[in-house]
């Protein structure tokens, strides 16, 4: 397009927006001008022109709807449950050494991550700590998706001997003995289990594949006692989930930019720099990031192997979704379990369609890209310290594992130049949403 034609297109697009015909002009392919002008009015050469197809793809990522309801958790949106869950989230007493809470790894001052490649609880873990911002949008939980609800996820780290090392009996005892926790729990679920008889309810008892002593104590308990404790543990986990569902970030610069595409507001259109706009065009175009990072959460919520070598070097030993698929189907607290409040609901039905097979070995969940600018490092073992490092990998596939028994060929070197890499980073940084309210980032007062 000649300079003259470009100027004409810009003017025509601006006129269309002024006349409220922005969307129509988008369809015609010359509406891009107004936001380009707004982004950098001083230099039309920086204008980023989005064609109609690109605009349609951009709109698939924003606006973001409200988080999906969680019918498996009847207190998911109960403010009383969220408040109790917030207390429990910051509670250290139920960890084995009395020093670890959920917030230890999911640090509210670090966007609910720990900024370490591998999580560290009682011991160092094998995987990177996933973030909790916007977690209510997730379809699966944990890197391998071995939990299908947010509340059942919360039960894992709490009892894991490498993380908090607690026990569900110990948690029930804490609830029963702490006046505030007991009152909050009772208001929601009725009286907690009477676990005063420590011989009948051993504090160290829990089902465990790795802790034989704890497992033996658990199996020695009466079946109805175990059931009562399990029920209480599920209730506590549902409260933690109710709190975590509130960790929703506000609109990001990208969201404001998309609003600007709709209403032509120059201020909103200025939310993305020309570089970030170019990165956006790459994201939904040449770089094809949208294949997996799709939708408003910038994630398909499913599992893929992208060939990143383990932190300690090849060969890979973590089977990821291969094990996760089996675990979620058999999980005693899954959506179809008797502890679910919708055991026949959609999430429970989904379990019946979970696919497993050798091709899933080493697959991990596609992480959301919202807030990616403040949740480094990246990947399931924190293999990449920066966004630049990730994009260099995608661009060159240097160090990627051999395909092996995986046939999937989604991953191809993008071969991006330095400017394109910088543009993509600029765009990714525009996905950081407004932080959650301060009162959600600390233990509630009065507890």
């Amino acid at each position, binding site marked *: 397009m000649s300079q003259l034609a470009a100027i004409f297109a810009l003017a025509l697009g601006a006129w269309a927006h002024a006349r409220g015909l922005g*969307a129509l002009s988008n369809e015609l392919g010359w509406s891009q001008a107004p936001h380009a002008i707004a982004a950098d009015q001083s230099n039309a050469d920086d204008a980023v022109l989005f064609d109609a197809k690109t605009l349609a793809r951009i709109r698939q990522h924003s606006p973001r709807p409200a988080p999906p309801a969680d019918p498996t958790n009847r207190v998911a949106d109960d403010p009383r449950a969220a408040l109790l869950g917030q207390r429990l989230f910051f509670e250290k007493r139920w960890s084995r050494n009395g020093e670890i809470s959920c917030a230890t790894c999911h640090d509210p001052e670090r966007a609910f991550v720990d900024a370490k490649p591998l999580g560290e609880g009682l011991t160092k873990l094998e995987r990177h700590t996933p973030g909790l911002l916007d977690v209510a949008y997730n379809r699966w939980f944990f890197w391998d998706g071995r939990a299908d609800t947010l509340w059942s996820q919360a039960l894992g780290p709490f009892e894991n001997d490498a993380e908090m090392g607690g026990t569900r009996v110990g948690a029930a005892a804490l609830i029963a003995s702490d006046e505030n926790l007991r009152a909050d729990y009772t208001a929601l679920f009725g009286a907690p289990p009477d676990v005063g008889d420590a011989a009948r309810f051993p504090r160290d008892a829990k089902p465990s594949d790795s802790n034989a002593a704890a497992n033996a104590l658990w199996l020695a308990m009466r079946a109805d006692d175990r059931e009562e404790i399990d029920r209480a543990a599920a209730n506590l986990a549902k409260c933690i989930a109710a709190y975590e569902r509130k960790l929703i970030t506000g609109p990001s610069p990208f969201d404001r930019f998309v609003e600007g595409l709709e209403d032509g507001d120059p201020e909103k259109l200025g939310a993305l720099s020309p570089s970030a706009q170019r990165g956006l065009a790459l994201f939904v175009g040449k770089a094809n990031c949208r294949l997996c990072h799709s939708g408003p959460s910038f994630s398909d919520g499913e599992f893929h192997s992208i060939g990143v070598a383990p932190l300690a070097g090849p060969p890979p030993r973590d089977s990821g979704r291969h094990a996760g698929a089996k675990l979620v189907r058999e999980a005693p607290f899954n959506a179809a379990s008797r502890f679910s409040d919708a055991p026949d609901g959609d999430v429970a039905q989904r379990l019946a369609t979970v696919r497993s097979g050798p091709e899933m070995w080493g697959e991990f969940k596609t992480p959301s890209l919202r807030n990616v600018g403040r949740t480094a490092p990246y990947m399931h073992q924190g293999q990449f310290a920066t966004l630049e490092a990730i994009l260099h990998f995608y661009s060159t596939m240097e160090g990627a594992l051999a395909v092996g028994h995986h046939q999937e060929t989604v991953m191809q070197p993008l071969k991006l130049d330095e400017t394109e890499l910088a543009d993509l980073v600029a765009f990714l940084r525009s996905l950081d949403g407004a932080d959650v309210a301060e009162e959600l980032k600390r233990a509630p007062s009065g507890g």
Partner: protein
Amino acid sequence: MRTNSLSLPLLPSLPRRSSLAQRASRSLLAAFTLLAALTAGCGSPKHGAPRQAPPEAKAAAEAGPSPVAARVAPEWTGAHEVVGSTGSFLVRWRTTPDAIPMNEEFSLRAWVFAADDRERALTDVELVVDAGMPEHKHGMARAPKQTRRPDGSFEATGMLFHMPGRWELYFDVVRGELTERAQVRVELE
């Protein structure tokens, strides 16, 4: 192997502002739907709308209750159609929702017919529905639950196309030791 190509519009999953572009898109969607319905109807002119009752039946109906039951359009009316690789079978299919959504679960209903009798769905065959992205060499992220309904139709629930791009839907019709495949190309944007 015969391949049918079909473009299915992406089902909008988000509330969006009404705009001229969206109205235009809806018009396109409606046009697509109409085109699909017309295309599906092309190969099956015998089972479209309910047949008009003959004059004698009409007179009997006016005279009072009659044992002559009204003809109801078969459930597969308006469904998409695809023929198997050797031309032995015809598969009629439709999804719920009508437009296959991107990365949202959907269900699929299908009926199998002998190529030379498109009036009666076969009850002595099995059908296995699957899908994949040939360009990426991967299948669905789910193993849909597949059941046979009392009326002889097949239903696959929990289908999921989790990526944009070119998908292929596979209908494997199994009769005894023989399997014949019909496949349809689906573009998800």
